[in-house]
């Protein structure tokens, strides 16, 4: 029932956006900005670039909202736009490798510096043990929360490919995360 209400709300938001309602779009931005930002950040490892990508993705969404079919979830569409932006950028800059280590080091520490450093360290190790393609799949599946089909559509791969890549990624992460838990 709650889910239905959410969809309804989202549909309304979309319709209003399609009618040019900026406030409705603001609601969309506020709702999804964190998920998009996190995804972009984990793909690029750079806060500034991630923010730029998020802005570009939202702008593209605003320009193309009229082509969006109401009734479908908005998040996969937005993530798809964002992923396209990031991948295009990475291709154009021939920089597909994440550089979390250097970028994270420059991040301001949180409330608990020790915990923050541990978190970054773990994130760095998790990201580094995955290939670029696996990393994209894992991010979209477990960070952005997309389904296999949505991930496949966003990355332009077959669902079977996404499944096998997910499986292999999890196989690799298994030991790492268990190790982390032991720590």
């Amino acid at each position, binding site marked *: 029932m709650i889910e239905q209400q959410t969809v309804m709300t989202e549909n309304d938001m979309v319709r209003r956006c399609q009618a040019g309602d*900026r406030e409705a779009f603001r609601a969309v931005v506020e709702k999804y900005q964190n998920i998009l930002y*996190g995804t972009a950040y984990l793909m690029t490892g750079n806060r500034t670039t991630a923010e730029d990508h998020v802005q570009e993705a939202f702008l593209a969404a605003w320009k193309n909202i009229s082509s969006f079919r109401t009734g479908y979830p908005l998040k996969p569409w937005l993530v798809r736009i964002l992923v396209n932006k990031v991948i*295009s950028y990475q291709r154009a800059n021939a920089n597909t490798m994440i550089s979390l280590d250097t970028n994270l080091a420059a991040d301001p520490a949180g409330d608990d510096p020790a915990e923050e450093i541990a978190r970054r360290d773990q994130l760095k190790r998790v990201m580094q043990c995955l290939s670029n393609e696996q990393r994209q799949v894992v991010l979209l599946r477990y*960070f952005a929360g997309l389904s296999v089909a949505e991930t496949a559509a966003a*990355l332009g791969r077959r669902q079977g490919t996404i499944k096998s890549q997910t499986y292999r990624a*999890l196989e690799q*992460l298994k030991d790492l995360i268990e190790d982390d838990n032991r720590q």
Partner: protein
Amino acid sequence: MKDEKNNFNNVEQKVQKFFLKQAESLKAGKDLWSKLEPRLDEKPKNTEPGKTKGRFWQWLAGPRLIAISSSVAVVLILVVAGSLWLTNNNAANSRTLAQSDKSNIVWGFNGSGGPVSTATYPPQIIPQTTIVATTTTMPSAAVLGAVGSTSNGVYYAAIPNAAGKQVISQASISLEVSNVSTAITQVETLAQNLGGSVDNMSSSGAQNQQQANVTIRVPANQFLTALNQLQSMGTVESQNINSQDVTQQYIDLQAQLNSAQLEEQSLQSILAKATTVSDEIAIQQQLTQVIAQVENLQGQINYMQNQVAMSTIAVNLNTPAQNVGQAPSGTLSVAVSNVDNSLASVKQLVSGVNGIINSSTVSFNDGKESAYLSLQVYTANFDQVMNAIGKYGKIEQKTIQESGTTQSSGTQQSNSPPNANIYLSLTEATGFWTPTHITIVAAGSAILAILIIVLIVAGRAGLLRRRSA
């Protein structure tokens, strides 16, 4: 199996949990909307992929572009290579002829006066017979003369000397000059200037009907120069060039000479060791034979070397007065659907009017068959033969040189040969699509089609799929 699934689910949950934890600390700046809002009216720098006119170029980009351009490149390379191959093949055919042995020479000898075809026909040895240019039109009488007949009935083919080969080049040329005496002097001067000499000279006839035969010898490398200069001295009535490849004979002679010389040396040493007179006499007799053999072989080699080094050109000079009343002559070029059948018909036709086929050659160029014939018919049958042959196909060129009066030999008499010359060219009436061209284009298209299919299959299999919407 169940454990494995549970494990997988466990890991999945752990990873989800891990990322949820990350999400807590990964939040966009609070001023995102304030930055974004002023930009909502901007025109987009890049429209969303897959939704605009850029779709085709996006589809094309990457591996597809490489595959398509590679396919086009392969086809282009095939076409260019095919064309080059064709060109080289034609050139190679000409070269082969240039180096060919006399037995492969197209134009033959007809001494008996009967209808004879001495040509390289059937076409098994065609690759060595491509002598005439690939043009489909009949060469003019003067040009045709370069591979045509002489008044003494000897026919030759054109061959320049080839490097590394022992080739004897000979030519005969019949020239119509205004003044035979002056022309004789010119020929002599020409021979001397080119480092050659006059081998033989004879002249006959009165001032206005004088005729002369001059045989000159020029260095082989000046052979074609001499011919060119001779051609410019008057009107060429006929011209024949012949070369004979004697490389094999030369090598054989050289081997025999070496062998004989070794035998001679051996006998000399045996002779020196001979103790009895009878032995000496026997060895001496053998030695005499061997020495004679050595000298004979050496003589042959010297002669051959001389023949190879110096080319012989027989020049026949006569005045225009001689030509008064000569029989008509004509050149005819006909495009026919089947050269072999037409050739057989021509032979039958000429034979039917007691004419002579001096020579006939069939050549293949670029898969296109051509036949060149030199005929002689009686003047009375000249028009009939020309018209009949003209009906075999499409006449591409027809030239008739009529005479003012008709000589007695123009009528059919048992004791005089036919004297009206017809130079006939039969070419296969085909367009651009020769078998070679068809093969090249078909192969290129097939490769292109295969590549496109592979591309499509690869695309469907997801191998080339772009990671875009």
